[in-house]
């Protein structure tokens, strides 16, 4: 039985489906511009628009809140961002360490470590189950109330960092676990076959490969952490969002929040692009092996 004749394979593709097609490009650009223009028009022409623009996007208020004026009762949002930065850098370093520790314990198999494994599992469940804001209150108000020597008299930012580390380490430990499990079993076999101990295999062979795989989700969590530092403001620390709130409550204008939002975007967007760059750069190296 002869095969049926093929359709005309050289016919042109439908215009609407080709992004590289010149007309398709013009269409997509035009429709994007039109939709954006329509949204902007709706915003501008709404009856409350002038008031909203003054309340949220007033340049004078944005500048004033960015610079601050303690005598008038509000602080600089820009300067307060420095507290956020210090908090998330300190927290991230501790989280990466604590989470790795928790992950390795949970992945261990010996009977000796069973009690630690149980504790680690309970910890991960609790830390992921309780909202971060409650953890912040518990640590931020509870620990000072215990009136322990030294421990109870730290600044709000310290308690905030402790709460963030407690909460985030659980999530990040799961990311580590997934990454470690994702390293192919053959790598473990090869490492152990050379006589490397379980710990040496983990340290020299498994972890380096696991970490390369999990850098994107780790960076994702880091970006999330940067924004969660805002919650530490609830303990009285003057971080950027708190400073924005102080300004807005004092002057009755929300533009300070816009400033805080912009500042956070300036922090997180470069990090997101950097993450993309790392993913692209690291792809080739992971594909070594028998796939030639």
């Amino acid at each position, binding site marked *: 039985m002869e095969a049926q004749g093929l359709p005309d394979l050289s016919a042109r593709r439908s215009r609407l489906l080709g992004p590289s097609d010149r007309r398709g490009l013009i269409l997509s650009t035009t429709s994007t511009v039109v939709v954006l223009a329509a949204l902007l*028009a709706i915003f501008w022409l709404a009856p409350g628009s002038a008031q909203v623009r003054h309340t949220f996007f007033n340049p004078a208020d944005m500048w004033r809140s960015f610079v601050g004026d303690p005598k*008038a009762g509000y602080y600089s949002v820009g300067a307060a961002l420095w507290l956020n930065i210090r908090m998330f850098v300190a927290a991230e370093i501790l989280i990466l360490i604590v989470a790795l520790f928790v992950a390795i314990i949970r992945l261990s198999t010996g009977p000796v470590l069973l009690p630690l494994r149980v504790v680690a599992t309970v910890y991960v469940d609790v830390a992921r189950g309780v909202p971060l804001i409650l953890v912040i209150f518990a640590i931020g108000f509870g620990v000072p109330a215990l009136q322990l020597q030294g421990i109870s008299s730290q600044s709000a930012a310290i308690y905030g960092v402790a709460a963030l580390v407690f909460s985030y380490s659980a999530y990040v430990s799961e990311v580590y676990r997934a990454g470690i499990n994702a390293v192919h079993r053959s790598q473990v076999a090869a490492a152990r076959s050379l006589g490397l101990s379980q710990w040496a295999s983990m340290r020299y062979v498994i972890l380096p490969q696991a970490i390369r795989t999990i850098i994107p989700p780790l960076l994702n969590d880091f970006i999330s952490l940067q924004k969660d530092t805002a919650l530490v403001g609830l303990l009285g*620390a003057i971080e950027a969002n*708190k400073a924005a709130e*102080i300004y807005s409550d004092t002057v009755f204008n*929300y533009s300070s929040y816009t400033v805080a939002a912009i500042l956070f975007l300036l922090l997180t967007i470069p990090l997101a692009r950097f993450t993309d760059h790392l993913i692209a750069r690291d792809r080739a190296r992971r594909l070594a092996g028998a796939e030639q």
Partner: protein
Amino acid sequence: MTVAAWAAIAALTASAGLAGCASSSGSSAGAGAGATSSASASTASCTFAGVQDELYGKGVLTVATDQPAYPPWFENNKPGNGQGYESAVAYAVAAQLGFKPSQVKWAYEPFDSSYAPGPKKFDFDINEISYSAQRAQAVTFSDSYYDVQQALVALKSSPIVTKHSPEDLKTYVYGDQVGTTSLAFINSQIQPTQTPKVFETLNDVKQALQTKQIAALVTDTPTAQYISSSEIPGSVMVAQFPSTGEHYGLLFAKGNPLVTCVNKALATLKSNGTLAKLTSKYLQIYTSVPTIKP
């Protein structure tokens, strides 16, 4: 025509339609400057019937405040019981405008959103809100219903109780509530070397005082009085500071014409001694409270 052209027409039609829709549905709170001119037209009748058009809900005076509602401004966290200075003032103003107590409704409005743009869900908000020129750009304030002085509360064991010369005052860590004028007062008048701590609610500030995270809290004298006498054991109101001209006003939506009648009511309550009576009944200002220089 090309698809692009159709898309453009559709989008522009939609946005024009929406804009037109919105602007034709009434401009009660959106406009702003126009309302003040209509206010003068209604000064003639500040009676129950006369103010109906200016109300949020017909036949009812809707008064807002925050949760929890603290003494001595409110009692038992129930604004509707008429007890507490602000509760009593609200009912007194309502009475002047011809509202019976049963015609006063209370609404909950968190402080942070009380000054948000757009129409309000209340006629006025009474919540120890101080007047400032900047704030008056976003909302309209009534005249003063209470002139404010700031005061200090500390634990009896704190050194600030005995050492509070202006130089000593600079060395302590203070705490206060966000959105109050206390922070401005601390920074501009006391000028401490360590940054004060700012808390979300008054309860958080009190907690911080009890756990010794702050040496003293700064708040208005009546609140300070209440905290030190009834709420925090072992605390004391150290002193109050001289007045800086601060006063509390009722908060209205920007350009709300009702403020004119309310101001008349307040003026009447001041002149007939009602406000003074309520002050001495609820705010228990001891004349022996020392006043110190910041």
